[in-house]
């Protein structure tokens, strides 16, 4: 099982099974791969991928607003046994109702309240112990706001990380969107974030969405603004180990993936 590169940032991408051959032929262009889905039973290339790349578990393991079931914990353990990455990722999100009857099936943040902070902290520790690996948590943007929050996103994250000892996976397109929709500059938005806890960064592009009548995350190359923001964060994140091009979609081409990783690598002078 290959180890993450040492002595410099690891620059990687998400594993897209339809691009497996291109990834295997890309030489040393891609340092690591994040796994959003388990390898499919018909994915003949996965054994070679596992032999070639360090893998990071970035699946949906469960929403940490609620206790994870034994089934979910066993699944998380099983996936980490396959990948053996240096950390495991989950998200600050709450998208299913407690009875499971309704789901939004997409990123949606929790209310930033004491109750949710307590819930996330307790359940994150259970997950971390189950996978027996460090846990990093990814920020999730909101598109609208309820008049109910008891703290800012930055305070919620900082207190959660202090309580649990987890790391931060800072998704920069998410930050850019959260800042955009709150009418602020991204660096200003990040002012109170615990950047000293950042272990991994996500970069990607954004594009206009007709329903939102504004920008949203897209499987496109990171904009120069996102790459500049990544460099700005990196200067303030002494624990940063990896930067990952965050795109997985059947429509994603090898050319876009490799160009995006190369642009990221160049931005960091690697």
């Amino acid at each position: 099982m290959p180890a993450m590169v040492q002595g410099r940032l690891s620059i990687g991408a998400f594993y897209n099974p339809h691009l497996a051959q291109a990834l295997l032929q890309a030489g040393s262009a891609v340092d690591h791969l994040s796994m959003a889905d388990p390898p499919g039973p018909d994915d003949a290339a996965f054994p070679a991928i596992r032999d070639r790349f360090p893998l990071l578990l970035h699946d949906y393991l469960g929403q940490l607003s609620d206790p994870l079931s034994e089934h979910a914990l066993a699944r998380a353990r099983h996936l980490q046994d396959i990948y053996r990455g240096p950390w495991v990722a989950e998200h600050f999100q709450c998208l299913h109702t407690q009875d499971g009857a309704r789901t939004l099936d997409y990123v949606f943040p929790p209310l930033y309240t004491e109750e949710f902070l307590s819930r996330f902290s307790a359940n994150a520790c259970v997950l971390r112990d189950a996978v027996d690996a460090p846990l990093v948590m990814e920020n999730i943007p909101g598109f609208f706001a309820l008049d109910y929050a008891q703290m800012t996103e930055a305070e919620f994250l900082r207190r959660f990380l202090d309580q649990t000892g987890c790391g931060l996976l800072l998704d920069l397109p998410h930050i850019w969107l959260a800042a955009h929709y709150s009418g602020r500059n991204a660096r200003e938005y990040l002012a109170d974030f615990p950047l000293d806890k950042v272990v991994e960064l996500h970069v990607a592009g954004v594009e206009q969405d007709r329903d939102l009548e504004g920008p949203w995350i897209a499987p496109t190359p990171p904009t120069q603004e996102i790459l500049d923001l990544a460099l700005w964060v990196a200067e303030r994140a002494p624990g940063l180990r990896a930067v990952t091009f965050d795109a997985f979609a059947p429509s994603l081409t090898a050319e876009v993936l490799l160009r995006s990783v190369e642009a990221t690598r160049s931005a960091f002078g690697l």
Partner: protein
Amino acid sequence: MADTRSQSDRDLQDAVITYLADATLRRAPVPGLPLSSEQARRAGRFARFLARRYYRDRLARSFRYSPRFAAAAETLVDTPAFDAFLDDCVLGSAAAAERVGDMATAFLEPLPAPGPWWSDLLQYERLFFLQTATTETVSPAEFPRPAASARCRQFSWNLPALLPELKTGQPAAGRLPQEVILLFSRTPQGRIYVVEVDDSTAAVFRAADARLSPRQVAEAVSLPAELVQRTLVALVRIGALVTSS
């Protein structure tokens, strides 16, 4: 809908999720949620974005073979008919999945048929779509009842045998029709089954309606009680039936 004074924050989050999932709730003034009218408008836009994204993804995952021969089913979500659907859909409900599945087959069926199996293929993909696009659950009763998305259908063509050929885009011209009964289901953990069943199993599935005990199901389908019991257990295991017992 939401009394923010007495409920937990987690309950309030459920109310927000339900509000976003159910377009019928968003028609009226904001029902008890701490949302300003401006933020409610934004929530409505986000809800449409979520629904369009959800059904685009499920159509692409489910109508996997027909794009070899016709338009991709997911292009349906960019049509005016789908815009109208977004105005009153309940995300993840069986009714919404039925409606989108019907829209997709109606969208594809009039196209020139690439083979005599075309209509069967679209029905196969439609029933698979019901599994991927339904998160609604039914309340378990004392006696077995069908899960929200479980369906059993007779096909004129043996789709499981034909699909590997359809995947290549060049099905064998000499293949003949062969009737099969397929049962489509999804477990609570999200595992989807498409299984070929015999007449007896299909009859047991269709008879189990929450009102009949296993013994009454056996009488209704004129099969041995022991066989029916084993069949019911197997159908519960693959998520086709649910029961509290």
